[in-house]
């Protein structure tokens, strides 16, 4: 983990409030793993005050980092308007990561809206080691405008299955409907095949994914988002109710948790903003 200044080298709008911020000078992030995040802050004066947690979308060997975000508040609105050349302070890489891809496991990656980045990075990690065929991306959003970077994902060679609530792209319905369909398929055609689910998205979606995984007795990892001030386990703001002890911390124990660890209090839990993105 390092604290350093990076520069915006490209800021690409994807429509619908989504944008990809490309940062140069991120050599300290080289080697970051899928699921890890950074705390970002521009020269914004005193309001908003705190840095924003954002999951990494991609980091190149040359130290170029891509971040996907959606405008949901002051911080992300300022990021979206950051021109090339602007300075952004970066603290990272922070947190843990998803399990590494493996030839004897099929990974079902379930992304909801702006929760895509860590799963995109996971898919890329699979593709890089020649395991694109043992990985499927299930990606859902409210409308087609909430599904971004589709071309990039297709070029990775992974199976991509889409769902929108309004039916404007892919299956009409929720991404969890698609997950249930795919599980039925996999459990039917290859009952002996080991499956793993990894998910990031709105809290309600994650609990639904966790419940589905539990009902099928499938290994499941959820990447959670919570309000946090520091990212390094100091402010203790990002507590989530846990199974083994009263609380776990998204920044230092997560953001990726085995579903069983955080599902204890899931029903009726807050349906927070989408994961992977900042407020």
């Amino acid at each position: 983990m390092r604290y350093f200044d990076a520069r915006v080298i490209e800021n690409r709008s994807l429509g619908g409030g989504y944008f990809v911020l490309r940062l140069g000078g991120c050599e300290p992030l080289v080697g970051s793993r899928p699921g890890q995040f950074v705390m970002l802050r521009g020269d914004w004066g005193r309001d908003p005050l705190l840095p924003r947690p954002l999951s990494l979308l991609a980091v190149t060997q040359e130290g170029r980092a891509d971040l996907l975000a959606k405008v949901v508040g002051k911080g992300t609105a300022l990021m979206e308007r950051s021109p090339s050349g602007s300075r952004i302070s970066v603290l990272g890489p922070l947190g843990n990561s998803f399990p590494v891809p493996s030839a004897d496991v099929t990974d079902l990656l379930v992304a909801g809206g702006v929760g895509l980045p860590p799963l995109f990075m996971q898919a890329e990690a699979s593709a890089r080691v020649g395991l694109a065929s043992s990985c499927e991306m299930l990606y859902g959003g409210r409308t087609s405008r909430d599904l971004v970077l589709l071309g990039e994902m297709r070029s990775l060679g992974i199976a991509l299955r889409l769902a929108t609530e309004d039916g404007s792209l892919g299956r009409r319905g929720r991404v969890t409907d698609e997950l249930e369909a795919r599980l039925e398929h996999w459990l039917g055609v290859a009952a002996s095949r080991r499956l793993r689910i990894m998910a990031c998205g709105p809290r309600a979606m994650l609990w639904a994914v966790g419940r589905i995984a539990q009902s099928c007795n499938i290994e499941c990892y959820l990447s959670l988002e919570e309000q946090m001030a520091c990212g390094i386990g100091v402010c203790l703001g990002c507590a989530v109710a846990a199974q083994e002890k009263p609380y776990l911390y998204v920044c230092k124990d997560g953001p990726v948790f085995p579903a069983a660890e955080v599902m204890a209090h899931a029903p009726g839990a807050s349906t927070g903003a989408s994961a992977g993105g900042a407020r």
Partner: protein
Amino acid sequence: MTAIADTPADGSALRATCGGLEFRNPVLTASGTFGYGQEFEALLSLRGLGGLVTKGISPKPRFGNPPPRICETAAGMLNSIGLENVGVEAFARDKLPFLRSCGTRVLVNFFGTTFDEYVDCGARLAELDGVDGLEMNVSCPNIQAGGIEFGRDPTVLRDLVRACRAVISKPLWVKLTPNTSDIVALARACADSGADAVSIINTITGMAIDVRTRRPKIATVFGGLSGPAIKPVALRMVYQVHRAKIPIAICGIGGIQDGTDAIEFLLAGASCVQVGTQNFVDPASVERIIREIEDYCRVQGVTDVRELVGALATGQ
């Protein structure tokens, strides 16, 4: 600008004294914003700090409040962490060895929920090697008095500090709540009962509402406001206590983001300052703040930062 040559180059101009302790410089990190020190080891040189104040320690571990625990507000943040900490024995066993070796002054913030808990916790901490001083958090609900904070009533505060003072020979500071109509009376109660310094201020009680869900933004409804939004209130309270000429040193806290902010507190009467929420905004900022104070001293020809304490010019 001939004054430049008059300022010692070895950094000794920044040496500060507060509440029975000497510091390399007048900048400490505030309780709850710097963990147990080790979390920041990779981000800055702890040796360069004036000192650090640990997370508040209680006799037994505490697990804290349900989430959401924090939210951002205009130029500040609200928190309701719930005084979560590892407890005094785990602190002594797991956290103190690092602090002992980190090369800076260590004050341990502590609290209890009864008089006896305060006294026992304070006494236990005071006997530990590596603890340079103690800071009492008196913004904790008194469970024997209907949950009213110990630190709001000068009489209760006087008795509590006196009881702790009797068993603590190391420097004893008291962190005062700003949620009072008379900060001077609270500071006087601390001076009367033998405390060495008052830390002014703790967070200001506040709240925030999510209009979309119509719910409070933090689970406990009310939380403590910190950050630059509270600086003018903190500065006013430091100055009120200084102006009252109460025989007790002041450590100023509240929204300090840069060297200028810190110097404002010194001029208002603080002998040193603590940086809190800013550690979240920019985890290396304490180093910069120290440098900025040094630059100010050089430019202003200040050879001893202690000259600035209470040097506010008022009147014509």
